[in-house]
């Protein structure tokens, strides 16, 4: 069994290595016809850019994106600068330089990778999946009898912030930086999933399709790990199935199929303000121009945030969204599970958390106010501030850096819920409802707590669960996403997630159950 695991690890690393090498290899050559078609399709009016590319790129062979991309980005920057100087605003190209390089790169790719998409898919995704499963499946036997299997987590390099964890950190951060800021280097990855993308939406894959597909693959593989690790715990099994379902069907398949049906791309479970660009002008316009389905989405999006989300939180707590439905939560609960113990439980972290997450919520709401005002007043400037610049700032700081690079990249170091805990504006909103008007709580079982600290250690949201449990108090915290792991790891059966009457949900107790009944009453009445 150990041998199978090790072979699996080697196969996985082979797949990963090939995947990681792809951004820097490959041949790119742009034919005059390809470029001509491209210019026509995009409606590029910049003669400077066109002639620059024709002179420096078209008809030449480039080895690796490193030599190709700078030509495009320089050409675009130079052309736009000249046009601005000449006040030729109609000629300015609004596509971002790196996106332009990615788009041109996508059509100019040639050679082995482009000609062998299926084989290359197998050598990257295929090997990765096979290797990972070979690494994970033997645990059915190796982990022994079902039960809590946390042995060695703080001895293993990978799960105790050792060098492996740091390598994973570097890999994830680099991956997100490429996705968000240097998409041209993702071009080779897009070839791997072109056939899949074409079969779904009919279009070739962009970097976001790669991301979406990979997200699903990673979640499925790591869900298998969850199923094995928590096979004694039905709550974890059901919950894992739920996040998997919503990711694959709602976040991945339905939007792609909608595109094939000429409908807007929309993830029906992605609620505002996590879906922060829902009220952006371009989105509203696109929805309003999409007929019945567009209107339906518009109404659904608003009803989801204003009615469905809070009502569901009232009945079930924010877990119904954060650890049962949400994509970010889904990745955190599968890929992130081995890192859940790294969220800081200090009081200081809690203070930081409250400032940050509520700050982001405020930012999202103010931004949305500006965009909506701008939309209805048909102006690009509100209170002397350019709406576009607010949106760009949010998209960059919160949407890309916080949610993506930090949110997932920092899993191995700061735990798997960095974004959900410190940044997600939807989580902040759900948290208010959960804290002040909900039937959900984690019940502490009388006086049974022995203060061992397993619950706090494995709380991914950094809640010091033990601090409540050892006082006999129920846990009612806005940040709790209801993953249920505190209850699972408790050796004494102290914690239970449940939805019950609001009365008695918060139960201050000074003297614990089990001691002198009169004393308990005397002290707790005060």
């Amino acid at each position: 069994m150990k041998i199978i695991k090790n072979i699996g690890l080697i196969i996985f690393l082979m797949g990963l290595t090939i995947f990681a090498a792809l951004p820097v290899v490959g041949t790119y050559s742009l034919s005059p016809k390809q470029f001509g078609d491209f210019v026509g399709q995009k409606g590029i009016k910049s003669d400077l850019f066109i002639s620059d590319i024709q002179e420096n790129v078209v008809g030449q062979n480039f080895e690796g994106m490193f030599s190709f991309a700078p030509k495009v980005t320089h050409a675009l920057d130079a052309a736009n600068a000249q046009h601005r100087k000449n006040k030729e605003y109609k000629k300015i190209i609004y596509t971002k330089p790196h996106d332009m390089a990615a788009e041109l790169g996508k059509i100019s790719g040639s050679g082995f990778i482009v000609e062998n998409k299926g084989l290359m898919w197998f050598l990257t995704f295929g090997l990765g999946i096979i290797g990972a499963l070979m690494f994970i499946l033997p645990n059915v036997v190796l982990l022994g009898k079902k039960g809590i299997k946390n042995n060695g987590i703080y001895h293993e390099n990978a799960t105790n912030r050792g060098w492996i964890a740091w390598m994973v950190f570097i890999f994830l951060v680099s991956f997100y930086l490429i996705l968000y800021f240097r998409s041209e280097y993702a071009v080779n990855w897009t070839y791997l999933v072109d056939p899949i993308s074409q079969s779904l939406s009919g279009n070739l894959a962009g970097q976001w399709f790669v991301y979406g597909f990979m997200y699903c693959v990673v979640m499925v593989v790591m869900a298998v790990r969850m199923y094995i690790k928590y096979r004694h715990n039905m709550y974890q099994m059901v919950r894992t199935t739920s996040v998997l379902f919503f990711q694959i069907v709602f976040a991945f398949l339905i939007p792609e199929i909608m595109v094939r049906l000429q409908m807007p791309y929309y993830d029906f479970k992605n609620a505002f303000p996590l879906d922060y660009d829902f009220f952006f002008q371009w989105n509203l316009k696109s929805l309003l121009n999409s007929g019945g389905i567009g209107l339906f989405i518009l109404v659904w999006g608003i009803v989801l945030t204003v009615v469905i989300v809070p009502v569901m939180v009232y009945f079930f707590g924010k877990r119904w969204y954060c650890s049962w439905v949400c994509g970010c939560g889904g990745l955190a609960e599968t890929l992130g599970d081995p890192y859940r113990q790294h969220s800081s439980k200090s009081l200081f972290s809690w203070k930081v958390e409250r400032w940050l997450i509520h700050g982001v919520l405020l930012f999202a709401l103010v931004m949305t106010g500006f965009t909506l005002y701008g939309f209805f007043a048909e102006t690009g400037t509100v209170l002397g501030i350019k709406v576009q610049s607010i949106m760009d700032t949010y998209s960059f700081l919160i949407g890309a850096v916080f949610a993506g690079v930090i949110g997932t990249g920092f899993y191995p170091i700061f735990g798997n819920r960095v974004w959900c805990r410190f940044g997600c504006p939807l989580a902040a909103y759900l948290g208010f409802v959960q804290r002040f008007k909900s039937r959900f709580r984690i019940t502490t079982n009388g006086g049974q707590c022995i203060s061992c600290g397993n619950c706090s250690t494995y709380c991914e949201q950094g809640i010091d669960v033990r601090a409540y449990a050892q006082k006999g108090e129920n846990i009612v915290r806005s940040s709790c996403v209801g993953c249920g792991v505190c209850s699972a790891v408790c050796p004494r059966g102290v914690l239970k997630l449940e939805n019950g009457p609001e009365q008695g949900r918060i139960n201050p107790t000074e003297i614990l159950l089990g001691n002198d009944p009169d004393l308990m009453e005397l002290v707790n009445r005060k």
Partner: protein
Amino acid sequence: MEHIVIIGNGISGVTAARHIRKLSDKRISIISAETDFFFSRTALMYVYMGHMKFEHTQPYEDWFWKKNRIDLVNAYVEGIDHKEKTLRLKDGADIRYDRLIIATGSKPNKFGWPGQDSKGVQGLYSKQDLDGVEKYAPNNKTCKRAVIVGGGLIGIELAEMLRSRNIPVTFLVRENSFWNGVLPSGESQMINEHILEHHIDLRLATNLTEILPDEHGRVKAIKTDKGDVIECEFVGLTAGVSPNIDFLKDSGIEIGRGVKVNRLLETNITDIYAIGDCAEQHEAIGNRRPIEAVWYTGRMMGETVAQTICGNKTEYKPGHWFNSAKFLDVEYQTYGWVFSERTKKDSEKHFHWRHPKEKICITVAYHSDTNKFLGINTFGIRMRHEIFDRWLTEERNVEYVMEYLKDANFDPEFYAQYETDIVAKFNTEMGTSITPKKKSWKRIFKIA
């Protein structure tokens, strides 16, 4: 300002300190030579197993003590002069107190086995013991086999720890079934099976006779009363604990096995109290033992003594007995009293249900004449403390407990529920026709 000095920073001493601080402004000092900060003793096993780091066993952050003006003194108390109200420390210093709380806990029992002081022979109680396991049994290369002596809760925890690093374990148990002085036979039998499932070499009805050290004074083997010699590099002595009170000899404080206290937790000397594992009641309270070495009772005594010290004289009146443990993968909870066949009265009758495949079972004890519910042991099913506490107070009969058993279930959502099976078996055995009632929030929370 009155100076309250507490010897021992375990759960009893720390609970007392916290509650004194809640109730008063007195000066509080806690003395310990074990660790600088309070940690949860029950969690030491998880540090060795790699579930947690030692820092995770500390329930309060380091700033907590200063903020709450609780002085922590790292020192070893050698003696008490109660006339001068002074403690003598090992480093020669003295500490004066106005009132003293002794909360020094336990030490593992050693029964005078030859070789019991060899290197690699120890109990599992203190932080130092944890360090010892890490030193003598870090992996299965250094420690090719470990022997554990004594089949109680700490013994099985130590076995689980060592197995987590794939160290072969031989487990010597004096009784002919695991912990059957406490557990009824059906449960004890189930745990025997579970121990074997974990590849632990369980030897029932077997006693240690001698520990054999090598030329460096390190354990190399043990002998049993069956004549077996078992080679090993580590021996865990887990045959119970006894009060850690050697430093009190000749202090004038009355001691028996522990520090003798009355119901107010006062010793024979004014202004000196004893709580937790080291305290011994003059007379046992109800079915309890005079010395209760249990986490929960230590905590309760801490809560109680704080009231007395702060002017609200309060007797230690523990409510209904409850306890919990975990045997490898099987959780155990108990509410009220369920005695083993070896210890129970004739009037105590048992109803036992065990799952046909899983390691799940319950035993309900009731009075043979009145059918009054006496207590319940559950394995692999979590139960609601408050519900059983209430039923015990209300002196419900066993039929009532069966009928409303679903109210008491505390298993996580979506878990398989066994009340119907349990009640069906009860009906068959008792000739009743009880239908279990659906779980009711109204009953659980007593909402009219």
